[in-house]
């Protein structure tokens, strides 16, 4: 099992692996003439053509309980579009729920690889996991209060999952260590903080003061997650690099 991330070895991906073959490869490519003129802008043109014909990824579902929605919509709206709020709530719910799985995987890494000076404790990771679950419950309840379906996949939730699909893959890969996983978790926490900020802004704009208070509390907790993850990551990386005396390579 490997604990370090950046050891020297037989990496073959660069041009310097084989100077003789590389020289030939460069010469071979130089002799080939492109069969069509232009640049990468040609790809953008086709992308634009398809974009003009596209219907988007999908919609926010019609609420099953119209009553709740209409009542809320009346309070919420004043000419605004309530489905934007539902869409973004759906995104947060999905993200927080996936966050639970991410920290489950991180705990698995902790148990295998242990921690390092300035790294996380098991209790700290467990605490973040329960925070993610409780945030999921919070958003789910908010969606229910608005009369919408908390089990629906909204367009923003779908796209957030597409954007972050590499994160769980780093966490569940048996070849990665906890420091490498923290890099992925930092991407998640940065996104999550920005997501809560946006949600608060939406709730404020719609006069949902109850939600604003709860969401601000959640943002406070997420800000702490981000700070911790960043700190653990820096300690782990600088520790392996040997540039910080107090840090060290991961030890069990």
């Amino acid at each position: 099992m490997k604990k370090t991330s950046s050891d020297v070895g037989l990496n073959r991906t660069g041009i310097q692996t084989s100077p003789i073959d590389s020289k030939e490869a460069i010469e071979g490519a130089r002799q080939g003439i492109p069969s069509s003129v232009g640049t990468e802008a040609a790809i953008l043109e086709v992308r634009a053509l398809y974009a003009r014909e596209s219907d988007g990824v999908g919609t926010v579902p019609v609420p099953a309980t119209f009553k709740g929605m209409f009542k809320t919509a009346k309070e919420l709206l004043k000419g605004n579009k309530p489905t934007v709020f539902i869409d973004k709530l759906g995104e947060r719910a999905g993200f927080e729920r996936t966050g639970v799985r991410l920290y489950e995987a991180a705990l698995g890494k902790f148990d295998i690889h242990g921690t390092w000076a300035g790294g996380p404790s098991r209790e700290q990771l467990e605490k973040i996991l329960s925070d993610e679950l409780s945030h999921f419950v919070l958003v789910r309840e908010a969606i229910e209060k608005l009369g919408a379906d908390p089990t629906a996949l909204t367009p923003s939730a779908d796209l957030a999952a597409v954007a972050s699909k590499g994160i769980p893959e780093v966490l569940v890969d048996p070849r990665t260590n906890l420091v490498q996983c923290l890099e992925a978790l930092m991407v998640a926490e940065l996104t999550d903080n920005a997501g809560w900020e946006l949600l608060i802004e939406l709730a404020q704009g719609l006069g949902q003061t109850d939600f604003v208070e709860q969401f601000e509390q959640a943002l406070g907790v997420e800000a702490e997650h981000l700070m911790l993850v960043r700190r653990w990551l820096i300690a782990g990386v600088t520790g392996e690099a040997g540039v910080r005396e107090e840090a060290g390579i991961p030890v069990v």
Partner: protein
Amino acid sequence: MALDLFKEKGVPLDRQVFTWKDLVQRPYSKLDDDAFTRVRVILMNGIEADALRFKHIAARMSRQLREPLALIRRVEHHQQTMVNWLNPADQSPLETTLGFEQVAIEVTASVAQREPDPYLAQAYRFGLLEDFDHLYRYAALYDRLEGKDPNYLIQSYSDIRPGRPTVVEHRHPLDDLRRPYDMRTAHPLTKIHAQLITAAEYQTHDYYMTIGPMFADPVARQLYAEIASIEEQHVTQYGSLQDPDESLLEKWLLHEAMELYGYQSCLAYEGNPRVKAVWERFVDYELGHLHYVMELFQRLEGRDPAEVLPATLPDPIEFKSHREFVRRVLSQEVDLRANGTEFVGKAEIPPGHRSLIYRDALNAEGSPSEIAAAGYQWTPGSELAARGQRLATGPEGRLQS
């Protein structure tokens, strides 16, 4: 009105043309389209993949059919492209997998209920309970790897619960072979069904073999390896239902009829107008192929295609939830096992049976399907919704955020 296979000529082969833009159309929506649109796209991709597979192998065995096979095969390659490219990019390989299993459940359930031959109907019900279990295993994996709800894809049409447990599905190859139908006496629908389900299962196998290694999680990699192995068993089972004495040309003629039947069934049920237009176009293309092969059959074998084909196509595959049928089969037949070509109760499998030895060897270092779904029960919003609910209402009260 039923389509008269001998009168309707469809579009002639030389007018079956495409452009790249045409082949790469706007995909269906994972969020907004009905789950059965996905089911149909996955099914027809599988059928076209099999059309290509069959024709390549046939061409290796027949000098006189090489050219006609090449001509139709190229069109079918492009048909497969247009169909398969209807899948949207935001549908991950694991999500598409859930769609594959829904095909295997709901399409096989429809086929099992329509199949005129009781032995073949039994074979379809037998396989159905295994694919039903695969849906449950993959659903658990999706929930547990990514924290997402498998019902995003399944849309409540199919139950997500164990079937015949995958761990006991592993059988010796000789217990996967079945008795073939008799080409002289079998109903045309029996022949069409056997080709159709073989095609669908073959593509499922190939899909899992392609995407399995793309997963990072070792249990996911193992689960795909395990279920791909069962799909290979299923291809063995369903492929062996076909009479090996049929000539290549007769099999080809039936394959074209099966493809036509698939598209016509899709057309009968499709709600998405753009996807429907694809089915409509390909019904006409397949009629063109069928007539092309009918002519070959007459000329090269000196036989009347009416000996093999029905005058009109059977009622379409029912693209709908077969929940009650599946539940009934589950309660009555989950303990069936295979012994050679026969289906028997599990008590009739003697200790030391070749399939038990085979299965125990594969499972000796643990069972991925049991690990992936340990203690799993699907609940709306994923099992984390249930955990969150307990947290919210438990004696310790809500966790403070």
